[in-house]
C-alpha cells in the first residue's frame, strides 16, 4: 500500500480593515443511522410514507410505553466510530434532554450527553494532492430524531407528522480544528463519504439525512496555535453556532458571511455574543435565532427507562472484522496497484459503487486506460444523463470487453467511442457488435494497398508534390483512412505510403 503523507493546509485568512483574522470552526454533524427501524421502537424508518403511518405507541409517547434499544443502530454507531479510528466505549448511557415542542411527543429527546458510545477519533480531510487537515473527532453519540411540524396546510392549525420521531441519529462532534469554509465543506464531504462506505448513513443532504451545526469564531493570527498548545478555549474568540445546514455550498457561504460579520463587530470595538444563528440562503446572511441567555435549559438527566448500554469487546471486534476498505486506504491502493494519479484516484474512490465498478474493469487490464474510460466516457455520460453507477446501461463486462478490443488493436480509439455509444444505447456484446458493424480495424494490407494504389493512380500531381516534400505524404494516409472508414491502422498505412512513394 502506498504511504501517503500530507502537510497541513494554511488557515483561511480574512483581511479586516485593521488586521488579519483567522477562522476557527467546529462542527456537529447529525447523521441519520441507516437502519430499517427506529432507535427505540420497531416502527419503520421508510421515507415518504403516509404521514403518521410509521409510528409505534412509544414513538407517540402513549402513557406507560417504554423504549427498547435497537441493537442494529448500536452496531451502526460502533461501525461509524471504528471508521473514524475512534475509541469505542463499552459502557455508555442515555440521558433525557427535556423541552416542549409538538413534534417531540415525549417532551424529551433520548440522547447521550454524559457517556457517549464513541469517544475520540479523527478524520483526514484532503484539500489538494499532498495537503490535508486532520480533524479530531470529540465524540459520537446516539439520539432520537424529532418529528415534523407542518404549518402551511391550514391557516389556523398546525399539524405534526411523527414518522421521523425516534429515528436514530448519530451526532458526530468535531474539535475546532477546521480553519476555513472550504475545509468545512471538505470535512462534511469526507465524513459523508466514510459513512456511505460504511453503510451507516445514506448521506442524502437534501433530505436532511445528514445535516450540520457549524460553530464559527474568529481570532488573530497566532491565537489558534496557543489554543492547540494548551487546549484552552480562552485563546479563541466567542463562537456562534449556525444551525441545521444541509448543503455544502451554503455551509461555505454561511461561514464566510458569519466570519466577516464577527470581524466587523470586533474591529468596531464590539463583542461577539454567543448565540445560535440561522442561515438564510436567499439573503446570503445569518441571523440570530436565540442568544445564550435565551438558550433552553434542557434539564438533562439519566434516562431511567434504560439501563446503561454495555457492549462486549468481542462484539466490537466482530464489527471491526467486517469493516470495508475505507476511502483513504482504497485511494492509496488504487494509486499503487493501478498507477493512478492522485486526481483520478480521488474521483474513482469518491463513491464506493463507482470504485468497485472501476476496480472490476481495471483488474487484469491497463489501470490508467481503464481509469480514463471510466472517468471520461462512463462518468461523463452518467453525469450528463443524471444516472447513478447502479443505473449504468454499460456493465463492467461490456466496458471490459471494449477495453480488450482496444488493447488487442482490434478497434481504434475512435471506433471504441462509437462502440461505447452503441453499447450505451443498444447494448450487446462488444466483440460481436464490433464485428457485426464492421468496426474492427483493417489490418489486411491487401485492402489498404488497393485503396492506396487507386489513390496514387488517380492523383499523379499529389504524388509528385509528396516526393518533393515528404510532409505532404500525410494527405495519402488521411485519404486511405477516410476510404476505409477509419478502420485501417494508421501506423500500417503510413508505412505503406512511405514505401509506395519511395520516401
Amino acid at each position, binding site marked *: 500500500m502506498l504511504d501517503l503523507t500530507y502537510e497541513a493546509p494554511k488557515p483561511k485568512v480574512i483581511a479586516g480593515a485593521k488586521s488579519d483574522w483567522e477562522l476557527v470552526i467546529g462542527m456537529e454533524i447529525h447523521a441519520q443511522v441507516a437502519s430499517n427501524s427506529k432507535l427505540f421502537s420497531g416502527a419503520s424508518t421508510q421515507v415518504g410514507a403516509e404521514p403518521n403511518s410509521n409510528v409505534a*405507541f412509544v414513538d*407517540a*409517547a*402513549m*402513557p*406507560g*410505553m*417504554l*423504549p*427498547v*434499544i435497537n441493537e442494529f443502530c448500536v452496531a451502526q454507531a460502533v461501525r461509524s466510530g471504528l471508521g473514524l479510528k475512534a475509541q469505542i466505549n463499552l459502557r455508555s448511557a442515555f440521558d*433525557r434532554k*427535556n423541552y*416542549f415542542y*409538538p413534534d417531540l*411527543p*415525549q*417532551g*424529551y429527546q433520548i440522547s447521550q450527553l454524559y457517556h457517549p458510545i464513541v469517544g475520540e477519533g479523527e478524520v483526514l480531510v484532503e484539500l489538494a494532492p499532498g495537503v490535508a487537515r486532520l480533524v479530531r473527532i470529540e465524540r459520537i453519540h446516539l439520539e432520537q430524531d424529532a418529528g415534523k411540524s407542518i404549518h402551511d396546510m391550514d391557516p389556523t392549525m*398546525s399539524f*405534526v407528522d411523527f414518522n421521523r420521531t425516534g429515528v436514530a441519529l448519530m451526532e458526530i462532534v468535531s474539535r475546532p480544528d477546521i480553519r476555513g469554509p472550504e475545509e468545512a465543506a471538505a470535512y462534511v464531504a469526507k465524513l459523508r463519504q466514510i459513512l456511505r462506505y460504511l453503510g451507516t448513513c445514506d448521506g442524502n443532504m437534501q433530505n436532511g439525512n445528514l445535516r450540520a451545526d457549524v460553530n464559527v469564531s474568529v481570532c488573530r493570527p497566532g491565537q489558534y496555535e496557543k489554543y492547540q498548545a494548551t487546549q484552552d478555549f480562552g485563546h479563541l474568540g466567542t463562537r456562534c453556532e449556525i444551525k441545521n445546514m444541509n448543503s455544502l455550498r451554503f455551509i461555505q457561504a454561511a461561514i464566510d458571511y458569519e466570519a466577516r460579520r464577527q470581524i466587523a463587530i470586533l474591529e468596531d470595538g464590539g463583542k461577539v455574543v454567543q448565540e445560535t444563528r440561522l442561515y438564510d440562503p436567499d439573503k446570503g446572511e445569518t441571523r440570530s435565532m436565540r442568544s445564550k441567555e435565551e438558550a433552553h*435549559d434542557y*434539564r*438533562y*438527566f439519566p434516562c*431511567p*427507562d*434504560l*439501563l446503561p448500554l454495555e457492549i462486549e469487546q468481542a462484539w466490537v471486534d466482530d464489527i471491526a472484522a467486517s469493516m470495508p476498505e475505507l476511502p483513504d486506504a482504497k485511494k492509496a491502493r488504487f494509486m499503487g496497484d493501478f498507477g493512478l494519479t492522485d486526481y483520478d484516484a480521488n474521483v474513482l474512490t469518491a463513491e464506493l459503487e463507482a470504485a468497485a465498478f472501476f476496480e472490476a474493469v481495471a483488474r487484469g487490464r491497463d489501470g490508467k486506460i481503464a481509469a480514463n474510460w471510466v472517468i471520461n466516457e462512463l462518468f461523463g455520460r452518467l453525469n450528463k444523463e443524471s444516472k447513478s453507477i447502479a443505473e449504468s446501461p454499460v456493465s463492467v463486462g461490456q466496458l471490459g470487453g471494449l477495453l480488450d478490443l482496444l488493447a488487442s488493436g482490434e478497434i481504434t480509439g475512435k471506433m471504441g467511442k462509437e462502440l461505447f455509444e452503441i453499447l450505451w444505447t443498444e447494448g450487446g456484446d462488444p466483440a460481436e457488435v464490433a464485428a457485426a458493424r464492421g468496426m474492427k480495424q483493417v489490418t489486411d494490407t491487401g485492402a489498404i494497398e488497393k485503396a492506396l494504389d487507386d489513390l496514387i493512380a488517380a492523383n499523379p500531381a499529389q504524388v509528385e508534390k509528396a516526393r518533393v516534400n515528404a510532409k505532404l505524404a500525410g494527405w495519402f494516409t488521411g485519404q486511405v483512412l477516410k476510404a476505409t472508414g477509419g478502420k485501417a491502422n494508421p501506423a500500417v498505412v503510413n508505412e505503406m505510403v512511405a514505401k509506395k512513394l519511395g520516401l
Partner: protein
Amino acid sequence: MSAPMSNANTWTIAAAREALRKGEISAVDLTMACLTAIDAGDGLNAFVHKTPEIALEQARAADARLAAGDAPSMCGIPLGIKDLFCTKGVPSQAASNILRGFRPEYESTVTTRLFDAGAVMLGKLNMDEFAMGSSNETSTYGNAVSPWRRGNDTTALTPGGSSGGSAAAVAADLCLAATGTDTGGSIRQPAAFTGIVGIKPTYGRVSRWGIVAFASSLDQAGPMTKTVRDAAIFLQAMAGHDPKDSTSADLPVPDFEAALTGDIRGKKIGIPREYRLDGIPAEIDALWQRGIEMLRDAGAEIVDISLPHTKYALPAYYVIAPAEASSNLARYDGVRYGHRATLSAGEGIVDMYEKTRAEGFGKEVQRRVMIGTYVLSAGFYDAYYNRARKVRALIKRDFELAFAAGIDSILTPATPSAAFGLGEMASADPVEMYLNDVFTVTVNLAGLPGISVPVGLDAKGLPLGLQLIGRPWEEGDLLNHAYVLERAAGFVSKPAKWW
C-alpha cells in the same frame, strides 16, 4: 361442603382457587358475588370504572378452562385493577383530569399476564393522581374512603395512597385482591392502613410496560391481598422478564407459594435503630416490639443493625421522584391524547401547553412537576439531583452491608401512624404528608422488596402494619418471613360494614 355463595367475595385467592377447582363455585358466580359487593360499595368510591361485561366474559372463559382442567392459580379470580394500569379499551386515566376519557389501544404486561392466567377484571380502582399522594385525596375522581372507622366515630378515614382504591376494595371485600403500584410506599402504606397485605417486589421483578409512569427508577407494581399466601400466588402470576421493559430483570421467577414453609429458625432479622423516630406514637413502637417477639419466638435471631443514611432518604426521594416525574409527565401536553384546553383567538402553542396542563393536572401533581423541574435546572442539578443520587447510592449500600453481614430480612413499622381522617391534612404543610413515606421510601430507593403485614389494631380499632424488607430477588424468603409474622399475629379483624 359448599360455601355460601353470597359471601364468596370475602374469600381469599387460595380458598377460591380450591373451590373453583373442586367445582364448588363457578367463576361466574364468584364474579357475580364481587360485582354485587362492588355495587353495594359505591360509598367507598373505590371502583371508578366498573367493567362487569368484561368480568363476566372472562369468568365464563375461566369456567371453560376450569372444566377443561387447565386452571392456573389465578384462573377465575376476580381482581380490581389500579387506574394506573393501561387496560385495552377501558378508561385508564391515572386518576387525572388530563387523561379524561383516555382508552388505551394496548394492555399492560401485568394485566396481560393476569388475564393469560385466567384472572377476571372487575374494574379500575381509585388512586392518587399519577400515584402522587398518601391519602387518595389528589384523585380527580374524589377520594376513596377506608372501610375502617375509629370505633363508633363516623369520621371518614383515608385508605392511604396512592393505591387507596385498591386497599379499600380489598379490605371491604369488593374483590379478592387488587393490583397496586409502589413508588415510595404506595402499596405498603395503604395496605397497613386497611389491614391487608401489600408487597412491593424487587425493582425489575415486574414489568412496568403499560403502567403510567410516575418515577421510572422507583415504580414497581405488586399485589394487594388479604393474606400472605395470596400475595405469593398473585405475585407469581405478575412477575417475570419482559423484553418490552429494559429495566425488567431476565431472571427466573421462583415458586413463591412453595417458599411459605413457616420455618424461619436461624434466620437473622435486622432491627434498624435509625427507624426509631422521635414523635412516633407509642402504639407503633409497641407493635414493632411485638413483631420482634413474634419472630424471635419463631426461632429467628434478632439483630440490632444500623442503616446510617436513613435520615436522608425522604429528602432524596422527594428530589429524585419529582425530577423523574417532571420529565415523565411532559408528554401530557394536549397534542395527541387526553385533555386539551380550549384556546382563544391569537393564542399559540405555549398557551395551549400552559392552559392544558394547568387544567389537567391537580395541585399536588403541579407541585411535584415544578419541584422536579427546579431540581434538574442548570445551576441546581448538582446541589439537588446529583446529591440525591449520591444519597441514594449510600442508602443502597447501607442495605447491602447489612445483608452482607448475614441479615435475612429487616423488620420496621410500615407507617408512622394509623389511618388519618380525610381532610385532616388539608391545611398541613405538604412535607407532613410526605412523612407518611418515612419507613417505605428507603426500600424504593434501594430497589428492594418490601412487604406490609397487618399485625394489630390501635386503641381506636384501626389496623397497624409492620414492614419486612428483603434481599433483592428473594421475595420467596421475604414472603415466608411475612407468613410467619402473619400467623403469629393472627390478625383476623375486618371493618364493620357501614357502607
